[in-house]
Structures are given as C-alpha cells and as structure tokens.
C-alpha cells in the first residue's frame, strides 16, 4: 500500500504549479514600524532630504522587510493532515531597492516536497520559490523558504 506516504500523487502534481499571490502597497508607516522594530535609526529610511544624497536618491526600505511576512506562498494552503508548523529556514537574493509607494506582488510557487521520518513522527518539507516584483515589473528579489509540517 502506498498510503504510507504524505506526498500523494495529487500533492506531487502541485510542484511547480501551485501558486499563491499577494499584492502589498509599501507604506511609510510600515517602514517606520519595521526599522523601529529592528533597531535601525538610519535617517536614510525616514529623512527624505538626507536620503536624496544616497545612491538611490530617496527613501528605500531595508531588504529585511521582505522577510517580515511578505514571504507569501509558503504553502500553508496545501491540504495536509499535519497541524504543526516549523520554519525550516529561508534565503533571499536582492536585486532592486523598494521605495515607499511601490506596489509589490509576491508570488510563491511550490518548488519541491520532501518527506522524512523524524523523532516526532512524519515530517513534510514544503519548499517554496518566491519572487517579488514591483509595479514596473522589475524583479526586486527572489527567495526560497522551507516550511516543515509535522
């Protein structure tokens, strides 16, 4: 019986296909809360006059904002009979700055599914490929996130 595997044929078919898309407007209030939370008082994030002198010519968001739950599409919508969730790590590659007022579209795609027998029982590793684009269609960043369900 093949019923022992978590990765059913149906689930396997989602690899490279199942997508989740979210669009977020990057507001200054979000930026202020974020840099406050990460302990970063750099005036480049808040002072327009100061930021004009920077290589980007204006206020930008720190790249870590993409990690703050703008991850999108880490696969929790997959129908899996496992309730508990663990973050298995993430990676990002940054290409373009994000500016206040940008509209970022995050698309997460199921990149791979793996399964392992852990000490706490069966574990399913859901690996998502993530892409962030701005309103001009530029790829701002790409990433890969591993979510563990067990």
């Amino acid at each position, binding site marked *: 019986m093949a019923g022992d595997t978590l990765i059913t044929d149906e689930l396997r078919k989602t690899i490279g296909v199942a997508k989740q898309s979210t669009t977020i407007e990057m507001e200054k209030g*979000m*930026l202020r*809360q*974020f840099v*406050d*939370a*990460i*302990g*970063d008082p*750099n005036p*480049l994030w808040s002072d327009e006059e*100061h930021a004009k*002198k*920077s*290589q*980007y010519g204006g206020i*930008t968001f*720190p*790249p*870590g*904002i993409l*990690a*703050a*739950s*703008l*991850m999108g599409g880490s696969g929790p919508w997959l129908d899996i009979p496992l309730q508990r969730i663990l*973050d*298995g*790590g*993430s*990676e*990002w*590659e*940054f290409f373009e*700055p994000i500016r206040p007022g940008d509209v970022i579209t995050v698309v997460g795609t199921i990149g791979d599914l793996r399964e392992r027998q852990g000490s706490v029982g069966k574990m399913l590793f859901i690996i998502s490929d993530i892409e962030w684009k701005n309103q001009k269609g530029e790829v701002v960043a790409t990433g890969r996130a591993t979510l563990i369900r067990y």
Partner: protein
Amino acid sequence: MSELIDKVYFEDVNEGDEVPPFSVNPVTRTIIVKYAGAGGDFSPMHHDELHAIRTGADRIFAHGLLGAGFMGTTLEKWLGVGHLRRLRTRFGERLWANDSITCKGVVTKKYVQDGEHLIDIDAWIENQWGQRTHTIWATAALPTRS
C-alpha cells in the same frame, strides 16, 4: 554622495575579519509587536501571552525572521546601505520575549565574481546564555577604492 553609503571598501576587508557586533538588549514585547504590525504576521504565539501559556510556553517568542531583520541592521551599520546581495537563515533556539541577543559574524571569503567585489559572511545571533537562535549566511558586494 557616496559617503553616506560606502562605509567599508573591498580593500579594507580581509578573510577572518569580524563583523562589529550589534546587540538588542532586551528584545521587548513592544519590538516583537511592532515587527508583527510591520509585516502583518499576527500568529498569536508572537503577541498573545495567554495563548502562549495555554500552548505550554511560558511567554511569547519572536518571529524567526525578526532575526533576519536584526542581522540586516548589523550588516548595514558596518557596510552601509545597498550592499547586501544574498541572505540565508536557519533557526536554532527560540528567541523569547525579553531575551537579550547579539548579532555576530566573520568574513569567510573575499572574491571577485561577474565584476562584483564580494564577501561571504558566516553570521549568527546568540542569546544571553550563549545559545544560537539563528545561523545566517550573507553575501555583500563592496565598492573599491580604485
């Protein structure tokens, strides 16, 4: 123009150099809640103490990715803005509310690739007990003096 941005040049960095450490002492509930608000992640274990206690913890804990934010701050304070190319993170011990943390790192590789002057950094965040809450790998592109 570049003085705001280019704090460290490629020529100034060597393999084995330490990243100037950055501490958050302590990581308050307010910080965690601000981060939740900025990113829109309102999972109750990150802000609802009663929920945390009911599920067997004794208090709330920070979003794992808050550590990526702290490390971003650490590297930006050292290198300036706009140099981070890649970041990868793994989680270790949980970062509990009111823990104190320090972000640390070491330059492991200095190289030129596709015309960019790059450094690889092995970094980590440790709590007040010396336990690692995060292991992080970063690549940054640096300006050159020439």
